[in-house]
């Protein structure tokens, strides 16, 4: 039991929490609150938590939420490299072209790691 536990990042989160245990590992953030970003339309291979509906769409950064390995790496227990995670707000009309004009203020908020984003 101990051998498994030793290898696992749960150990380093003990008493600290996850994602708190990755704090300070991502380096300088590329974007700041208010930055306009575009979600990259990267290939879908095996796993992602970047929703298809966000791809290619422009969003505004509302918060730098935490640092963590991206899920695409952590899903194979690879936690060697952390990134900043951003909270992003999209206008519904930018996601779904048929979204009614009457509700043009409606939005979606979701979080993505830095590698999915480029300056808009």
């Amino acid at each position, binding site marked *: *039991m101990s051998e*498994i*536990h*030793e*290898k*696992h*990042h*749960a*150990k380093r989160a003990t008493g600290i929490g996850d994602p708190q245990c990755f704090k300070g590992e991502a380096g300088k953030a590329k974007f700041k609150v208010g930055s306009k970003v575009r979600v990259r*339309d990267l*290939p*879908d*291979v*095996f*796993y*992602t938590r970047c*929703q*298809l*509906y966000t*791809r*290619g769409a422009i969003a505004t950064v509302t918060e730098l939420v935490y640092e963590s390995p991206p*899920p695409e790496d*952590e*899903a*194979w*227990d690879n936690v060697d490299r952390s990134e900043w995670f951003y909270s992003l707000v999209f206008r519904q009309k930018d*996601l*779904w*072209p048929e979204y009614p004009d009457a509700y043009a203020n409606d939005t979606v908020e979701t979080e993505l790691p830095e590698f999915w984003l480029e300056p808009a």
Partner: protein
Amino acid sequence: MTERNRQKPAKDAPYPDLITNERFRECMRTPHDVGGEDDVPMQWEEKEEEVWEHNTFVTCEVLAWRGVWNAEERRRRQNVDLGNSNYLAIPYYGRWLLTAARILVDKQHVTLTELIEKMDEVKKRYE
């Protein structure tokens, strides 16, 4: 905008030249990514929990507590690796359960023959 409604291929195991890049992308789309797909209104319901559902959730959390996997590995296996048809065909905690079984075999904590024999033994207790 990417097309969000899955299409069935025209032919099973089609010839490579029948697969457009767009079609390839459809095939590679992860089953859990359902946001924005068409659907019709349904009756919203609550549900009682089965004993096995509760136990499955606890088993999965305890496996992570003891370092057998992390939650992202679990999410990948139960929401994507399971494949499209089982993703939609199996109940929520059924997917958790299959994933817990699979991790024991994949990480070689048990052999598949051990699991098969164990299931048979458990079944016989109820005969």
